[in-house]
């Protein structure tokens, strides 16, 4: 077990859990239900999101074995049948509106066992979830070739014109009936919306009018694959041709292992509406030339070109030294669609070398460090406010709409707040435009603490601003609150004076700060003042209105100061 864990770690996989079917059921449903379930040890492995070739057991094992140098990397071959003998998939122009692209291939003389069959279905599901983005980009259909006759037509028809027996059903349905049938199916209902509102639904027929599938929803029952299936027709349809090609390549490379002639795939000719044809699968082997010194430099190792070639070959990137020893020719197989730049090759070389074998160095870069002025000011003010006897709080930047509007006796439209489109709970509907609700909620959560409660926070608030390149900006606010049996306006006022004192802002009209009586919706009438400094209004202070106090579930009076500190940077 530990050895496997090490291997996974080195290779870049995460061994999440070592469990068994019995354990899984125990955890989810209780020990009773688990009796009789398999005790066979199961490994849960986390695969990086860009390695589609490791998503099935076959690919994973193959990758690890090449890594350990137990087997050589297989060569995947495309067999192009003689003229007139191969299968053809004809795409009509009606598909352009709904799901334009399609690719196909054939696996000849394949042998399925229960495990292989399960793995086959499993890989399709995983690919659907991962690169196909829940079937939106690409949908995979696999069919028993011996039950149908080519050439096949991929077209799009009105829902009422499509009628067939879907997989595992007992009777025929029209397409619209199928939509209703699967509306409550926990698995398929998530995909219905992909074609539901289109005038035509995609459908694939064989030359006798038998329906192979209606992508991306369901295959026909007629072409269902069983353990006795010998020849498989695979089709991938979708809206992204690059991904469709990758998906097809992955499926055929993984499972061609079980064909009579291992690692061979029979090609299919796809005919486009404009008459052009293309042979799929592409199974392209790409060659990249990399300089060994580039790899050595980027990683920080010094390996000879031939040892680098060996390392890369272990990662399924067959390489050999060319030129006069200073070039590496790397062959990228169709299973590695994640290699799109020389830096991907560099990473693979580093993985084969072993990350933890690389020597750690410190860069020789000399730089002079700097703190951002706004943050420096905030840090200094935090120290001074704490010294004045106030306790710092850190609250959420997202809150509910009521928190910044109704509970503060103001209207949401007056707040200029940034609104979230998809909050999971009502607590995260808007970004806060004032620090006050956060502090009031903090006090409400700490009612049992001894009075007086003196809290402060220096943090960002967010407002809409049409002048920025994104349409909103942050302001650094300082908010302090005093909660006690008496409101303590003089204490908050004293705090303001102290803050101005440490900021070296004199208390006068011209170049300093003043306060003028004002009205604030969240404040007690007649007990509110606006703070002016550097020629602008920077905030308010005063006694909080009783309604506000009650709305935040508090019972005692309090006074608060909130100012924008950015003018003082």
């Amino acid at each position, binding site marked *: 077990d530990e050895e496997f864990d090490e291997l996974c770690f080195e290779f870049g996989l995460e061994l999440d859990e070592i469990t068994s079917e019995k354990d899984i059921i125990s955890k989810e449903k209780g020990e009773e239900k688990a009796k009789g379930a398999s005790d066979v040890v199961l490994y849960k492995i986390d695969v990086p*999101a860009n390695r589609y070739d490791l998503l099935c057991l076959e690919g994973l094992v193959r990758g690890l074995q090449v890594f350990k140098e137990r087997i050589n990397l297989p060569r995947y071959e495309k067999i192009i049948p003689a003229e007139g003998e191969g299968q053809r998939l004809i795409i009509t122009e009606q598909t352009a509106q709904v799901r334009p692209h399609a690719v196909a291939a054939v696996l000849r003389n394949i042998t399925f066992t229960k495990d292989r069959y399960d793995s086959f279905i499993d890989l399709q599901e995983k690919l659907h979830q991962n690169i196909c983005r829940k079937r939106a980009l690409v949908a995979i259909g696999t069919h028993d070739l011996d039950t149908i006759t080519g050439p096949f037509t991929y077209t799009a028809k009105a829902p009422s014109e499509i009628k067939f027996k879907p997989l595992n059903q007992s009777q025929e349905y029209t397409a619209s009936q199928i939509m209703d049938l699967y509306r409550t199916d926990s698995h398929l209902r998530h995909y219905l919306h992909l074609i539901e509102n289109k005038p035509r639904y995609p459908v694939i027929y064989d030359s006798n009018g038998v329906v192979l599938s209606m992508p991306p929803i369901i295959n026909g029952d007629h072409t269902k694959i069983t353990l006795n299936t010998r020849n498989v027709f695979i089709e991938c349809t979708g809206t*992204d041709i690059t991904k469709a090609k990758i998906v097809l390549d992955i499926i055929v490379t993984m499972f061609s292992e079980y064909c009579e002639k291992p690692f061979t795939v029979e090609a299919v000719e796809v005919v486009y509406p404009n008459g052009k044809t293309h042979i799929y699968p592409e199974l392209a082997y790409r060659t990249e030339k990399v300089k060994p010194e580039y790899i050595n430099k980027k990683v920080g190792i010094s390996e000879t070109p031939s040892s680098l070639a060996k390392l890369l070959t272990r990662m399924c990137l067959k390489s050999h030294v060319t030129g006069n020893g200073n070039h590496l020719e790397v062959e990228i197989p169709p299973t590695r669609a994640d290699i799109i*730049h020389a*830096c991907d090759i560099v990473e693979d070389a580093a993985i084969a070398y072993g990350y933890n074998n690389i020597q750690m160095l410190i860069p020789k870069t000399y730089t002079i460090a700097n*703190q951002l002025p706004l943050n420096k000011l905030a840090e200094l003010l935090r120290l001074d406010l704490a010294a004045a006897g106030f306790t710092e709080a850190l609250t959420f*930047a997202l809150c509910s709409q009521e928190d910044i509007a109704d509970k503060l006796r103001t209207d949401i439209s007056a707040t200029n707040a940034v609104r979230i489109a*998809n909050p999971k709970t009502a607590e995260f509907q808007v970004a806060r435009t004032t620090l006050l609700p956060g502090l009031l909620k903090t006090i409400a959560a700490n009612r049992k603490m001894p009075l007086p409660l003196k809290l402060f926070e220096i943090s960002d608030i967010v407002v809409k601003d049409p002048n920025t*390149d994104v349409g909103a*900006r942050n302001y650094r606010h300082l908010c302090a609150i005093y909660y006690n049996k008496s409101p303590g306006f003089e204490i908050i006022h004293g705090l303001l004076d102290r803050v101005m004192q440490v900021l070296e802002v004199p208390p006068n009209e011209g170049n300093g700060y003043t306060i003028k009586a004002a009205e604030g919706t969240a404040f007690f009438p007649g007990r509110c003042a606006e703070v002016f400094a550097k020629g602008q209004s920077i905030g308010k202070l005063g006694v909080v209105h009783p309604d506000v106090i009650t709305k935040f579930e508090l019972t005692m009076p309090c006074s608060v100061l909130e100012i924008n500190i950015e003018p003082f940077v």
Partner: protein
Amino acid sequence: FTEMPTDNFVESSFWNFDALFQPQQHPARDQHDTFFLLDPAEAPQLPPGYSSKVKKVHSQGGYGSQGYRYEWKVEEAKKNLLRTHTTSASARALFQLARQEKFSPVKYFSIDRVFRNESLDATHLAEFHQVEGLVADRGLTLGHLMGILRQFFSKLGISQLRFKPAYNPYTEPSMEVFSYHEGLKKWVEVGNSGVFRP
């Protein structure tokens, strides 16, 4: 290390994802993981010359890369969101650096809030803080990255480190940093890192 300006919670998808080579169909850009904004929903402006370069690299490739080969939509890039990582601020900082007349090596850092659309539980918050650091210079290697990380963590009192290959859309090679937790008696992930893609 010099502090980067990070005082913008609202970010456009462009800086948070596209400029960092995260494809527009990536699951993390889903409704489930990111907070998208209702108002303001779209960023009024994207840097014009730069955004066309980003479009090209995603759809056709460039700078030695094959690219993702899909249709890059500017409407996706304009969608506003609450940033999911402070790397968007790093991208902006690097962009400014690139526009300097003469290249000077830099070391940047930031510690600020990020937002992820998650349900709250014992180990997950919807908003949390990230510490981010980056070094830009000529001749840097993976070994240098590991060296800096080891120094950083040793100052925090964490000295047993192991590095694991990982995947980020914007770095290659990438490493997850693991440290042995005495209390839990197992290796836990303490950080993520990588060398930015060319």
